[in-house]
Every structure is written in structure tokens, then in C-alpha cells.
């Protein structure tokens, strides 16, 4: 593949476009409500009506308003005409009647509603537009031109410095500066180096990375290739969880196509650069999202973390320098390359640049996928875009960061979403799960739920996490059942602090966060459940002390 061929492919794909495109969502959310049936019904209807020359039915990735799926978007002459929601295989054909001036039997939503209008697309710019199963569709929107530019017009050091200047921070949750990480790997000596994409998205309620992989897999491959060129790696791995079969299938398809087109393999774009990507499928352990555990798993070992340092950038996969980034981080690379670091750095806040994708879920009217510039307030996200609580409810808190994060109470809804503001409130940006809770939600129950999750997902290697989560869960359970005293609560807090300070990896270190943050903002709910400490209340106090044997 050379640039001329790439441009030829792009032009041919653009020329083959028809006047009208019916885009049907084929991401996991809509597929689960039978969008495949809708897609087939649309194809059949187009064939029967003889509009085959004018209308294209295209399977696309996520169109974001997941709660209203299956979604079909009608585009005429390159502009969005209407968005049809909850389409069924029975009423899909009526969309064609609508095109001919008739009446559609489907429900339409306003594509200008705040849910869509307040979004800003960088990572999701192709999501819902291109066909994720065809590389030509990605090339038509400028795909792989960033890789060509990096290989032919930039040195690896220039690519790294561009990433540093962009101010991009890791989207996996911790927010480590991406450019600095790339720089460290590039400068670490090693006869081999690796690039890993962490697609082991495990937080309950989070589906950003899945959507990116299902909607635009080539974007991730391109980002990884640019990263590999920058750090000097020739082999990449995508570690994706087995629970994402569709994402895996699309990735496999994308890798196969890239190899066919010479965009992976030896001598990419007629350069010296060689790079291959293999997929590793996780076996269902949440802890394998932790980078050292993930690498152990890729190596074929038991997926348990190890102490850092050494960091993967110095000694990672099989002891070689390894760059490990999250799906969304890699998805930002090609746009930065195309539009420049200064463009990216102009979006967002002083210390958090670019956009962030969130999976909006919970007690809210519009659930789905959103991408907003950093610094957007939680109120904008929850009230304007999310449409607030469903009838009769009042929003009480927003949970970010999953089992490692915290609950932000409604009083703090004006907080801008960026790494620093969220951590000041005892939560974290996390990978992008955002669960809205209304006043019917018990915060003690939430804390107990997340603690149970961490207890089940602890790998068992270090004692504070393995045994501590069990005891914290018991204490939370006791409080929730109304069988605890103030002494139990004090013990819980003591244990939270100890597990946070002493655990080996991020899972244990952050497992107390949901408990600590609900205690910080909703302490009254815990105290209301406590029993008085008095003689004769032995049932409550059972298990408080025991002589050592």
C-alpha cells in the first residue's frame, strides 16, 4: 500500500455512495434488541421497492441513544434527515414509505436534542457513520492517513513529542500523561518492545471501550500502529474480555483486512516499519484490567498483579519495555496526528485535554453513550443531556469510576468533569462509567454492592485485599441489615483505610473508595441504620471480639 492507493480507495468509496443512506445500528446494544432483523427488513424493502440505485442500507456502529434502540438514521445528500427509534422488523419498511413522502410508522426523535447537540466527537467521530466491518468505509473518512503521515513525515521522536504537547492523559482511569509514558518506553533499551491495548473493560455499567471496538475497530489499530512506530515496537496485543464477542469478531475482521491491505505486517506504507497485532481474550477476571495482571495473563500465567516498580515501560511483557494504553487512549491518537497537538490541547481544561466518552446509565431518561469535552459539568451531562431522573424521581448522586470510584452528591453537580476535580471529591474519572442514582437508592446498598464486586474479583494474592474485602463486606452487610453498632462502623472505617494503604494493586487500593465516598457524603444513612450500644445487645455485638486461639 502506498499513499496513492489509499487515496484511490478513499475516492472510490466516496463515489460509490448513494443519494440516501439508511444507517442501522449494529452495535451490541441494538443487536440485542434485534437490529439485525431491522437491517434485513430494510434491505428487503429496498430491493422490493426497486430503490437499490438510490438507497444504501448500511450497518454502522453505536448511535449513542442506547435506551431507544434499535436505531435507524436516515441521511439524504450527506445530511441527517431523521432518526428513527425503537424500530422493529415489522415497521422498518415504513421508513421507505416515509422517504417517498408517506408516513412512517416508526417513532422519531429530534436529532437536535441536547443529548446529541452537546456532544463533541473525536473518539466517536466515525461511530454510527461508517461500517465497522469494512476497512474501505474507514479509509473513506480519512482512515490510515495519520499513520502514513507519521511514518513518512515524522520521526518517532516527533510523534512522541506531539503526544506530549497534546496533553492527552490515559483514559483507563488513572489519567497518567500518555506522552510521558510513550517517551519512557521509547527511551527504555530493549531488543524487543511491545504495545498492548487494554480492552478489558470491567466496571459494572461501563461500555465505552466495547462501543469503540464495535463501531470503529480500525481507529484503535491505527492508533496502536502509530504508537508502535513512536516507541519502536513490532508486536502488539489487544487484550479484550471474552464477554465482548462482537467486539472480538470485529477486531479479528479488522486485523485480517488490515493485513490484506498491507496496513499491518512488514514494510507498512513502503517504509521500514513492521508491526503485527494479535488478540488475547481474557477469561473473565476483573483484575486482568490491572496492567501487571494483564501482562501476566498475556504471557499465559495466572492473572495476578505484581509490585511496581519496575513499571511496564521498563520491564513489561516477558521483561521487555511495554507500552500499555486503554482503547479510548489509542482511539485519540489518529485524530491528534491528523489535526495536530495544538488543536487537541485547545479542547478541555487546563490539566485535562480533549474529550471523554461516558456510558450514561442508571436512573436517568436518556441512557447511552456520550462524548463531551473535558470540563463539562455533571449538571449538563445529567440534567440537559440525560434529561434528568425519570418521572417522580429526584437525582441523588452520580457514581463515576465503578468499583474504584465514588458517589458525587447532587449538591456537587456543578463540578466540571476532569481528572482533578473528580479526585478532589473522593471519586475518580475512571474509565467512563457514569451511573445516576435517584432518591430511591440506598447508599449503604451501593457501597455493599461494590464491595461484593471487589470481594468476588479479588485475585487472592495479597492479604489486605483478599481477606479485607471479605470483612468489609461483612461489616457493610451487617450495617445494611440493621445489626451493627457504632463500633462496627468505626471498625469498617479503620479497615477501609488499612486496605487502601496496604493492598498490592489498584483493585485493593481503591476497593474502599465507594464506601469511603458514601460515608463522606451520606454518613447519615449509615448512622440511621446503627443500633445503640448497650448491655444486652449481644446479638449486635456478636463477633466483635474473640480470644486468639
Amino acid at each position: 500500500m502506498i499513499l496513492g492507493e489509499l487515496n484511490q480507495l478513499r475516492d472510490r468509496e466516496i463515489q460509490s455512495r448513494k443519494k440516501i443512506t439508511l444507517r442501522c445500528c449494529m452495535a451490541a446494544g441494538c443487536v440485542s434488541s434485534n437490529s439485525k432483523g431491522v437491517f434485513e427488513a430494510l434491505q428487503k424493502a429496498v430491493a422490493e421497492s426497486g430503490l437499490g440505485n438510490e438507497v444504501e442500507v448500511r450497518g454502522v456502529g453505536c448511535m449513542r441513544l442506547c435506551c431507544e434502540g434499535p436505531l435507524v438514521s436516515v441521511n439524504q445528500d450527506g445530511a441527517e434527515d431523521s432518526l428513527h427509534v425503537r424500530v422493529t422488523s415489522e415497521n422498518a419498511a415504513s421508513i421507505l414509505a416515509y422517504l417517498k413522502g408517506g408516513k412512517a410508522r416508526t417513532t422519531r426523535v429530534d436529532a437536535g436534542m441536547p443529548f446529541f447537540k452537546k456532544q463533541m466527537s473525536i473518539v466517536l467521530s466515525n461511530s454510527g457513520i461508517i461500517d465497522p466491518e469494512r476497512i474501505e468505509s474507514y479509509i473513506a473518512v480519512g482512515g490510515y492517513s495519520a499513520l502514513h503521515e507519521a511514518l513518512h513525515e515524522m520521526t518517532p521522536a516527533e510523534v512522541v513529542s506531539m503526544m506530549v504537547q497534546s496533553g492527552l492523559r490515559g483514559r483507563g482511569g488513572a489519567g497518567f500523561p500518555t506522552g510521558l509514558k510513550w517517551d519512557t518506553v521509547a527511551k527504555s533499551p530493549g531488543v524487543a518492545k511491545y504495545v498492548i491495548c487494554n480492552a478489558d473493560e470491567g466496571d459494572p455499567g461501563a461500555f465505552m471501550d466495547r462501543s469503540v471496538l464495535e463501531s470503529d475497530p480500525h481507529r484503535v489499530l491505527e492508533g496502536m500502529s502509530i504508537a508502535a512506530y513512536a516507541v519502536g515496537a513490532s508486536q502488539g496485543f489487544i487484550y479484550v474480555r471474552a464477554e465482548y464477542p462482537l467486539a472480538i469478531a470485529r477486531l479479528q475482521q479488522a486485523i485480517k483486512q488490515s493485513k490484506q491491505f498491507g496496513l499491518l505486517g512488514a514494510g507498512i506504507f513502503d517504509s521500514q516499519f513492521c508491526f503485527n497485532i494479535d488478540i488475547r481474550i481474557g477469561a473473565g477476571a476483573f483484575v486482568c484490567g490491572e496492567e501487571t495482571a494483564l501482562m501476566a495473563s498475556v504471557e499465559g500465567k495466572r492473572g495476578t498483579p505484581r509490585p511496581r516498580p519496575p513499571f511496564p515501560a521498563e520491564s513489561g511483557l516477558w521483561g521487555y519495555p511495554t507500552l500499555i494504553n486503554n482503547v479510548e487512549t489509542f482511539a485519540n491518537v489518529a485524530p491528534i496526528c491528523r489535526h495536530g497537538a495544538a488543536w487537541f490541547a485547545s479542547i478541555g481544561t487546563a490539566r485535562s485535554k480533549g474529550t471523554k466518552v461516558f456510558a450514561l446509565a442508571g436512573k436517568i431518561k436518556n441512557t447511552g453513550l456520550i462524548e463531551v469535552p473535558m470540563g463539562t459539568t455533571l449538571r449538563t451531562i445529567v440534567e440537559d443531556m440525560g434529561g434528568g431522573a425519570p418521572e417522580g424521581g429526584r437525582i441523588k448522586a452520580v457514581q463515576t469510576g465503578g468499583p474504584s470510584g465514588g458517589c458525587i452528591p447532587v449538591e456537587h453537580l456543578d463540578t466540571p468533569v476532569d481528572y482533578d476535580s473528580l479526585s478532589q471529591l473522593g471519586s475518580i474519572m475512571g474509565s467512563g462509567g457514569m451511573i445516576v442514582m435517584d432518591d430511591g437508592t440506598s447508599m449503604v446498598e451501593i457501597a455493599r454492592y461494590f464491595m461484593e464486586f471487589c470481594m468476588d474479583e479479588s485475585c487472592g494474592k495479597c492479604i489486605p485485599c483478599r481477606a479485607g474485602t471479605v470483612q468489609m463486606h461483612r461489616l457493610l452487610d451487617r450495617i445494611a441489615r440493621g445489626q451493627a453498632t457504632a463500633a462496627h462502623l468505626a471498625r469498617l472505617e479503620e479497615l477501609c483505610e488499612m486496605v487502601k494503604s496496604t493492598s498490592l494493586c489498584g483493585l485493593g487500593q481503591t476497593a474502599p473508595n465507594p464506601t469511603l465516598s458514601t460515608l463522606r457524603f451520606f454518613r447519615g444513612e449509615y448512622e440511621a441504620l446503627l443500633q445503640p450500644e448497650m448491655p444486652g445487645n449481644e446479638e449486635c455485638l456478636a463477633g466483635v471480639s474473640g480470644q486468639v486461639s
Partner: protein
Amino acid sequence: MAAKTLTINGRQISAAEGSTVLKAAEEAGVEIPSLCHLDGVYDVGACRLCLVEVKGASRLLPACTTVISEGMEVQTGTERLIKYRRMTLELLFAERNHVCSVCVADGHCELQTLAYSLGMDHVRFDYLFPKWDVDNTHSLFGMDHNRCILCTRCVRVCWHIEGAGTKNVSGRGGQSKIITDLNAAWGKSDSCTSCGKCVQSCPTGALFYKGSTVGEMVRDRSKLEFIVNAREKKLWVYQD
């Protein structure tokens, strides 16, 4: 090899470059408690008992895997560390069924000794009283999972000293369990060489020689050390 100077508990000491904080402290006569560390096998930093405070580090660091550096200032026994260590031991005692008075290792148990020395006289957490079995199928050794603290010393000596790869860990979290082969009965294991290194390495009474009764299970760690260092010191070579 160059030496590095560092401060442990306010006292200046020097140690060989590349040593761990644990080793440097030991040489200087400062004892740092640990359960998963075993001389001669690589460290995993899992028991979290050897955590120390290092000036300038944002987190507590495990002494067994932290390499010393010039001018490092280490505190090994602050109030906070002692409190965490006691709590770690409490968590261990509550996790499985540790009944010292009927244990083969009573009086020779590292867990018991640490609990005494750190003054852990009560367990404030619920005893879980889980149901674990005892594997007595091996002709020479026994494994009582009730007494296991999952330090993985046995796994490491089996893989990295004996090279048999019999012992392993299955399950996760509190359900983690030391297994032989692919969770077969120990007596049916094809890979076990019956070398007994796992038994020598165990800090508690989980692994024991069959036939030993209460308090009789004494370990000979020097045997392990001999095996680990013998080749380097040319002790295998017959000398007359």
C-alpha cells in the same frame, strides 16, 4: 559491587547495591516481619507485612521487593505500620481455621510467632470458619488447607528450586487454594518428586510430615538454603 548508604529508623547503614530494603535491614540487625518472603526464592510482595515507610514515596513499599538507593530514608516500625501489621494478622486468623493448640506447628509457626511479637492478642473481625479439607493422600506429606495463608512459598520452591511445577494456585479471592497438578489429589500427582521442599518452606502447619503430632512439625530451613546456594558454592562437588 558498589555499596549504597541509607538510613533505617534514623540509623545510617550501608549495603550492597541492588540489595532489597529487607536484606539491608536484616544485615543491619533490624527485623522487618514478613510471611511470604523466603531466602533463596524470588519475592512476590504479597503478605504486605514488610511494608515500610520510605521518605518521598507516596505509598508504603514492600521491603522485600524495594531495591535500596543512595540516601534512602526508611522507617520500619512506625505506629501506623505496626497497626497495619496487627490488622493483617487479624485478617489472617479470621480467614481460615487457625487453632494453635491442636496444630502440628504449634511453637514452631511463623504466623503464631509474629502474632505474639506484634502483640496481636485479639481478633476483632468475624471468624469465617470456612470448610476446608485436608489432603492426606500423599504417602509422606499432608496438606491442611485450614492452616494455609496462601503465601505461595510452596508454589515458588516447587517451580523454581525443585523445578517440578506440582504446586499451584486455583480459584480467586478468599476461594484461592493451593493445588497439586490440575487439582488432583496430591498422592495421585504425576509431577511431584516427593522432595519435601514445600513442607520445609511452609510458615504454618499447612504442610507437614505425616505422623507428626501437635507441636512436632519442625522445619529445617538450612536444607533449603543449602540447595539454593550449593551449586554456586560448589558444595555438590566431591572434595577429598
